[in-house]
């Protein structure tokens, strides 16, 4: 039987607030950004309402392409390192008993209770010229003058990995936790060693968790700007900083909008790849 319009309205009524929220706070602003990206500005920073593709053409300038490339590499490496560190952590955690498991998950989530900006400042205390690590190494006479640990690509990478790795761990943890242990036993039973079983059974079956974790880490890594500001000191330019600079100090909101759209397209590309990878999986993110 077909439901009447009235009935359907009634059924979907709870969705109205979220719909209004999304339209007002996500949809319309995004539309404005898209519109803005086709305008330009005058020398005072006022917006000139003249449609053109100039902003997008500017994006193809090698200087700017370099920024896209930097961000892309940073996001890819952040994902990779989070995966390499996060997988064993998640695998180990999922194998523990209920009590130790909850405790470990709590520890993994704990940093989220503190402002991420504060935590990023924390790294400067650790890594700075007069920081904990340098002082300790000098005290132990391993080095005699402070190492340059701050303000380079590696520092930013350390920061983004640190900030985003919990997403990776939790995603993989969920996949490993769902893994049917009798499949591993079946593999041992059929002659598979632990190592072979890991690569032939565990890894393929936890791929959805890896893909989800990678996506959840990759996307923010592309746009996080305060980490590269604080830890990178502007020595390497990333997309987030660039957009931030253009929109604020540079007073060029149209150009910033165009770059923001460029970044969104890059994210969509990643999501597209993710949807292909996890096509057959029930635990898909999309």
């Amino acid at each position: 039987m077909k439901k009447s319009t009235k009935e359907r309205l009634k059924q979907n009524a709870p969705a109205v607030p979220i719909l209004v929220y999304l339209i007002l706070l996500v949809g319309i602003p995004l539309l404005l950004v898209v519109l803005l990206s086709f305008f330009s500005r005058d020398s005072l920073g006022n917006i000139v309402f003249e449609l053109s593709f100039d902003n997008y053409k500017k994006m193809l300038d090698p200087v700017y392409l370099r920024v896209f490339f930097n961000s892309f590499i940073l996001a890819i490496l952040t994902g990779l390192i989070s995966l390499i560190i996060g997988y064993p952590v998640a695998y180990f955690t999922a194998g523990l008993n209920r009590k130790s498991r909850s405790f470990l998950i709590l520890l993994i989530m704990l940093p989220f209770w503190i402002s991420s900006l504060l935590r990023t400042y924390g790294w400067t205390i650790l890594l700075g010229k007069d920081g904990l690590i340098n002082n300790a190494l000098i005290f132990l006479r391993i080095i005699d003058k402070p190492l340059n640990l701050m303000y380079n690509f590696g520092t930013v990478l350390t920061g983004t990995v640190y900030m985003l790795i919990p997403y990776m761990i939790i995603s993989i943890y969920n996949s490993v936790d769902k893994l049917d242990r009798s499949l591993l036993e079946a593999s041992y039973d059929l002659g598979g060693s632990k190592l072979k079983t890991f690569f032939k059974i565990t890894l393929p079956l936890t791929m959805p968790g890896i893909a989800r974790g990678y996506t959840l880490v990759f996307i923010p890594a592309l746009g996080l700007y305060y980490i590269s500001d604080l830890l990178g000191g502007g020595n390497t330019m990333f997309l987030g900083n660039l957009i931030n600079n253009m929109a604020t100090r540079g007073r060029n909101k149209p150009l910033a909008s165009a770059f923001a759209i460029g970044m969104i397209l890059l994210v969509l590309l990643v999501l597209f790849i993710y949807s292909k990878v996890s096509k057959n999986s029930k635990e898909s993110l999309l």
Partner: protein
Amino acid sequence: MKEQLLSLKKVNKFYDEAHILKDISLDIKDGEFITLLGPSGCGKTTLLRCIAGLESIESGDILLNGESIKDLAPNKRNVNTVFQNYALFPHLTVFDNIAYGPRIKKVTKEDEIKVKVDEMLELVKMEGYGDRMPHQLSGGQRQRIAIARALINNPDILLLDEPLGALDLKLRKYMQTELALLQKQTKTTFIYVTHDQEEALNMSDRIVIMNEGRILQVGSPRDVYNNSNSLFVADFIGDRNIKEVEVVERKEDFCSVKLGKSIIDIRTDRSMVKPNECDGKVYLAIHMDKMKISYDKVDNSLYGEITFVHYAGSQIRTEVDVDGEKVTVIEYQNDYDNYRIGDKVYISWEENGAILLPKEDIEKRGN
């Protein structure tokens, strides 16, 4: 006589404090279809997992072809398991599932594997299903693939952990015949775990009855069915009337016992209670389907009043009150089939349907 294929020697297994397997000793010959039968929690699955190497044992030894395998990892033992939920790899096709064992051991060339997989698919009647994914198969089909995946490795022993448990009744009966045939065809030793006595009686060469981590009786299906050696086995296998009776007289080959007001003679040659032990109170166990109801007086019979009649097509289940004791009789045919509640009747039985069992439990008797 042929050497034992598998020997379990005083195997003990603990989970923390719980003593799961208690001094399990068992010899299995090559080519046998052995069933481990018992209620859930009796340790039968644990014993199977110990043989597979998926569980370690605390003491005792497991010998395969005369060599100890108790410290070998599961992938080093030439036994394979068909798991209860089949445990087919969901990301691999049927073909790749079956080829998993030979491929991972890297001893067979890919073109030989192809031939062997096809042979296996034919053996389990699943030709042409190689490209399917496990989730596209029905329960019975998954079952067959799980068996093929195990058998392709030419195991010394195939271990089957309640493989028919998840199938519906009709398919289960069909698969029982199939499995028994497959076992004869491949001449592989099967160790089969089930809690279903009918399955066990139907397929096995020998049945091992387990309870609370111990082996209670080992024997052919006929043997354990007719000559149960303990109260537990008598109660577990088949439908029996089990009554506590008083011994009034003992003779060379029979005991006179008193049930209610009737005194009846029970042959003791197949019973666990020998005439000289036949003392005081014992248990009388009579198969319900080896009893017969009669309106005329019969020698050596019980006399009582019919209290209920269940008509179930091929069989009639009649409940008779014998001096306050309820006795159930299952008949497939009788001249008098119009029993009425309240009728006074005599109950007789085939001599081999009745046994006497000692009162003390198996644990006190020390095996």
